[in-house]
């Protein structure tokens, strides 16, 4: 408790912590300077897990195996998908308490011509959607400049490890799709829209909406043969994507059928997620055809070097 408190205090005092400082590994709440917003982070312990799905898992796809053991360092993960409330403050600097104090060293999303929540709701806890990978990473950069903490998208392995939360079944709660409604908003119960985050049951590690609601960006380039090339026991590391598409999206969403939400299910991004952008060049910031893709923050326990962080925030390859 005491450590949690100190950690939260440190975060709220906004002290830029040098990367060498030994970090206490406790859940905490990050308050974002010059805004009225804060968000929680929970601890995901270092460990090993079997990534992918077993050959006998119902409805599995070819690209989910063969399963490999993967080792991960500890990280924090947001228990909730990132909400519009927070993203809009980043998008519109005039929404910061004192816009004069707004961070200038980061570009902000253009104002989109269409309403990007597609009527699903923006205020009061709805997950952000329709944002590009670049948009999500730029948000993380803004957050990094604001808080001094390196927030980023989870790697594909981190995401799956967190979703499984120690389980070996199709979903963290078991293999029965019939139970999915207790944990997730998906086609059958969503009524065609995402819902405010955190209304369903969390998994064993305290993470909400890992399945359904909005699908979530990972940091990784999607390759169909990921598992064939993965060495058993390998430590999963952060790699920069080389092309804009495809990048792995995980977790399924409000319009998904149950099997698409399984922990091991993988979905490659494509230009189709932007096909209805009526302008050319198409937006770097908005997808227009993905009112079901959002993201969730992680923060590695051991912060990488400044240059590694900058490399992560480098602009991605362009649309063709």
């Amino acid at each position, binding site marked *: 408790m005491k450590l949690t408190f100190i950690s939260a205090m440190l975060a709220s005092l906004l002290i830029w912590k040098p990367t060498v400082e030994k970090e206490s590994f406790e859940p905490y709440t990050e308050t974002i300077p010059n805004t009225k917003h804060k968000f929680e982070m929970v601890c995901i312990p270092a460990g090993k897990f079997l990534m992918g799905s077993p050959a006998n898992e119902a409805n599995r796809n070819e690209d989910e195996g063969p399963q490999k053991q993967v080792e991960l360092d500890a990280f924090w993960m947001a228990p909730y998908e990132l909400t519009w409330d927070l993203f*809009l403050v980043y998008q519109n600097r005039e*929404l910061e308490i004192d816009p004069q104090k707004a961070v200038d060293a980061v570009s902000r999303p253009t104002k989109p011509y269409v*309403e990007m929540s597609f*009527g699903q709701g923006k205020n009061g806890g709805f997950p952000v959607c329709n944002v590009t990978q670049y948009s999500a990473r730029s948000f993380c950069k803004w957050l990094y400049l604001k808080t001094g903490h390196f927030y980023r998208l989870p790697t594909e392995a981190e995401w799956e490890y967190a979703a499984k939360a120690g389980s070996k079944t199709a979903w963290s709660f078991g293999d029965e799709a019939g139970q999915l409604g207790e944990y997730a908003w998906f086609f059958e119960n969503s009524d*065609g829209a995402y819902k405010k985050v955190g209304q369903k049951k969390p998994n064993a590690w305290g993470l909400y909406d890992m399945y359904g609601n909005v699908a979530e960006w990972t940091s990784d380039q999607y390759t169909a043969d990921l598992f064939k090339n993965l060495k058993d026991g390998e430590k999963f590391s952060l790699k920069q994507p080389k092309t804009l598409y495809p990048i792995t999206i995980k977790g399924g969403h409000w319009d998904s059928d149950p099997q698409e939400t399984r922990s091991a299910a993988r979905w490659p991004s494509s230009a189709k997620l932007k096909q209805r952008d009526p*302008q*050319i060049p198409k937006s770097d910031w908005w997808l227009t055809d993905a009112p079901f893709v959002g993201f969730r923050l992680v923060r590695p326990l051991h912060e990488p070097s400044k240059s590694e962080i900058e490399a992560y925030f480098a602009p991605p390859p362009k649309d063709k």
Partner: protein
Amino acid sequence: MKDINRRNFIKNAALATGTSVLATSPFMSSAFYHQSADEIKVALIGCGGRGTGAAFQALSVKENVKLVAMADAFRDRLDSSYENLTKGKAGARVDVPEEHKFVGFDAYKKAMQLADVVILTTPPGFRPIHFEEAVRQNKHIFMEKPVATDAPGIRRVLDAAEVAKKKNLKVVVGLQRHYQTSYLETYKRVIDQGMIGDIVSARCYWNNDGVWVKPRQAGMTEMEYQMRNWYYFVWLCGDHIAEQHIHNIDVVNWFKGGYPTQAIGIGGREVRKGKEYGEIFDHHVVEFEYADGMILNSQCRHQPGTVANVSEHLIGTKGKATEGRIMDLKGNTLWRHRDRDDINPYQQEHNYLFNCIVNDIPVNDAERGAMSTMTSILGRMATYSGKKVTMEEALASDISLAPEAFTWDTLPKSLPDENGFYKIPVPGKFQAV
């Protein structure tokens, strides 16, 4: 030679105005096209982001299409558009030599002459003169909404639309919801099958953060500044009730099968107070009344940090409908559209246009586009003036917002004061009609 045949064909078809024989003439059959494998030449008039997008879609249809000419008021806009189009997937269908790139206010006329089909995507204030000229030159047309910004402009479009119909020209307007599967499926159930009974009330919204702003650069004439920052000037954009919210108002008109007869409204500038935002409002709330007394409540707003909503809702005697969903009166979903494999409506409107051209299927969205544009102008007249305005008097209005001439040195009618601020309409005092 093929090209000449093609052009003669278009001309002949167009000259045979008003003849019902035309539609059944064997000369118009699809076989003609397939045998000749003739190329359809396209000109892009207005090379901004949307124009480039529309050209890309026109070049992505299955018919044999080629972009042969481009026109814009600004050379830099034309160049970036050309670059984007040539490097994109449709690049092989772009054949615009330097001498077919036209810049300036008169550029459109020359570009049109080289084409069979024209894409009109300049700021909306220019649409009436461009549409008129395209019809005069017997071209098939894709034009973006809104199609005008004032009543005289609407009347020109309506007149030209009649001529276009007689000339059998195909006209598609970029109100793409008419080409969007989720709306078409909803329409089937609401109107054809009567799932919600009689429509007794409607509401629609375009509430969002707002759009881009272009800063004034040193050395710009007032005309250039306004054209670069066209969104914030009524003669060019029509205000956001016309430029964006038209989509939602048009959907209600479409389902209602008619246009409002009068409107009252409230609007103003609450957050968009800087001089960089020109003269348009940042919110309008309009109550439109249709001939049978049905009320459409319409809202549009450009205010960051407020509730966002872009949608249309119909309330019927037996249920409610919105895009892709029908509910009973208690809100229980009766039908829902799952749009996983729907075709991009921006592509579909071009697929449809070119199919209509090749197979001589009549299509003319111009009147509908004009009347839905006029509905949004009626709403603006109501919010600017604070008075009740009827469609009849609105449509008859002689207030023209366009400048006296189109040159870089002409002063637009609305000018900034010594501090750079434009005069904002004051409800109760502003003469809108």
